């Protein structure tokens, strides 16, 4: 946007690109008039590491480890998507037991991701006690994931043609025990979110996205479901063991930050039921099949419902042990347009909550720059400053 567009009272606020605690840095240039946001321009690409190109230079087995490191929160979703694509290229299918184990890990990961996000949003509205509670309880899930896989974050459970580690009876009983704890806590959170005035005041009616806009801007995952759009790859295009498991898609009609919070909390309960059902139905048999390492020329698209929404991987093979082309579309990118729509016309004080609402999760060290065009004055702000500004603004209004 040109500087000529700006009137005297128009101020350009630059947020980002650093927000270190979570997710890829994105930069938002926000034009404000007084308190109101007029226009939002995102600028992405700060964590561009060239993964797609790197994947073309590595073998399919090596790429498994690279795919795991695309995102540290939904690492299992990425590998599931990757192995699904490669298994499709090879025309092999993972054994049923492997599919169920993948489902268990995927849902445990969803629980941990949603808990993490609930904490972050609570932190953004200035309710740090809730943040601490949620992150304390999240450790229960982290312990389970470590018990199953040996690592807290990158589980390395998936391999081409199955999974690498089996679940025994001892682990299953530990998972069930852990789930009981989380279920009780999640119910408590739902009550808390509905009653706590701090959360209600900062989230109800904030960042409204109508269901028409959610479809028009192609929102995915909890963001779309919070606007009443029933969109979930687990039901629309069932993969791994989801077609054998009965579960509900949680949707709400409010379309604001409050409903996004409720959706995540309710999805935790739904995920707990999925894990329970998957564990009770766990088939016996092998956990992986042997596959070839050279893949004949072909191409495929693979879809997975990551904790943040629909994740798409595309792969093209050329008869060697390396892919010819690999493409990844992460859910945050899809939600970015809807985010810009939500940010337009709102108060500057609501920006942190809405940004966190789509789950790219800004955190402590974000810096923003305010350029007052009239004074040609530069002022550096961190997200902490913005958060403090937001709290003070809400105390006044």
């Amino acid at each position, binding site marked *: 946007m040109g500087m000529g567009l700006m009137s005297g009272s128009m101020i350009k606020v630059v947020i980002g690109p650093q927000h270190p605690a979570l997710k890829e840095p994105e930069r938002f240039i926000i034009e404000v008039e007084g308190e109101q946001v007029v226009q939002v321009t995102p600028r992405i690409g700060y964590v561009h590491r060239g993964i797609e190109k790197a994947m073309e230079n590595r073998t399919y087995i090596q790429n498994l480890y690279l795919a795991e490191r695309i995102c540290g929160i939904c690492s299992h979703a990425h590998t599931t998507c990757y192995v699904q694509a490669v298994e499709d290229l090879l025309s092999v299918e993972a054994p049923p037991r492997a599919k169920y184990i993948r489902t268990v890990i995927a849902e445990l990961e969803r629980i941990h991701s949603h808990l993490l996000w609930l904490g972050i949003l609570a932190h953004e509205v200035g309710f740090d006690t809730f943040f601490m509670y949620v992150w304390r309880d999240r450790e229960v899930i982290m312990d389970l994931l470590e018990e199953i896989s040996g690592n807290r*974050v990158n589980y390395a459970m998936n391999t081409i043609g199955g999974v690498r580690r089996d679940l025994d009876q001892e682990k299953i009983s530990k998972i069930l025990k852990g789930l009981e704890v989380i279920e009780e806590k999640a119910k408590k959170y739902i009550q808390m979110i509905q009653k706590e005035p701090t959360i209600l005041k900062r989230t109800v009616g904030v960042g409204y996205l109508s269901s028409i806009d959610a479809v028009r801007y192609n929102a995915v995952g909890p963001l779309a479901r919070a606007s009443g759009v029933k969109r979930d790859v687990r039901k629309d295009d069932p993969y791994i063991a989801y077609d054998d498991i009965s579960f509900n898609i949680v949707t709400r009609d409010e379309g604001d930050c409050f409903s996004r919070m409720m959706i995540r909390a309710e999805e935790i309960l739904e995920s707990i039921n999925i894990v329970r059902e998957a564990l009770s139905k766990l088939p016996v048999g092998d956990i992986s099949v042997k596959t070839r390492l050279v893949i004949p020329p072909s191409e495929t698209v693979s879809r997975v419902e990551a904790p943040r929404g629909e994740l798409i991987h595309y792969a093209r093979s050329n008869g060697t042990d390396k892919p010819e082309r690999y493409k990844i579309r992460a859910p945050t990118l899809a939600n970015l347009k809807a985010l810009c729509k939500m940010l337009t016309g709102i108060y500057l004080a609501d920006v942190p909550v809405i940004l966190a609402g789509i789950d790219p999760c800004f955190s402590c060290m974000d810096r923003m720059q305010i350029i007052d065009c009239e004074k040609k004055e530069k002022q550096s702000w*961190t997200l902490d400053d913005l958060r403090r500004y937001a709290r003070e603004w809400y105390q006044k209004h």
Partner: protein
Amino acid sequence: MKAKLADKILKWARTRSLWVTHFNTGGCNGCDIELVAIFTPRYDVERFGIMLKGSPRHADVLAVTGPVTRQVRDRLLTIYEQIPEPKHVIAIGTCAVSGAPFWDGYNVIGGVDKIVPIDVYVPGCPPRPEAIIYGFKKLIKKMEAEEDIE
């Protein structure tokens, strides 16, 4: 004599209240959440006086995660320069240590030590919260052994 005592008090205070600012130079998030996790009740490093701060101008320590991409190189330098002396840098995760699986990426410069000097390396993908706490304790030991500044 007086100046020496002042130095001692300064060092004592400094090593018992480390303020950390965190910068993700292009990491995947794994290390970032593990770093945030050490400030939450299970690990709670505030008992050692370690606190996460938003602004580099308030910080003693820069915690860096992720391989340095070309886009953030200048930003990393700016942030490093904004931290008041004496400053220390801790590299968390194998990416920040060496560039790890992204070492040959066209947009990746490599480990953080190619851009700014590093005091403590914490390897792991991602390092466990306990390992990060151990890294901070090592840093405190190193700071205590350092010659008096000023």
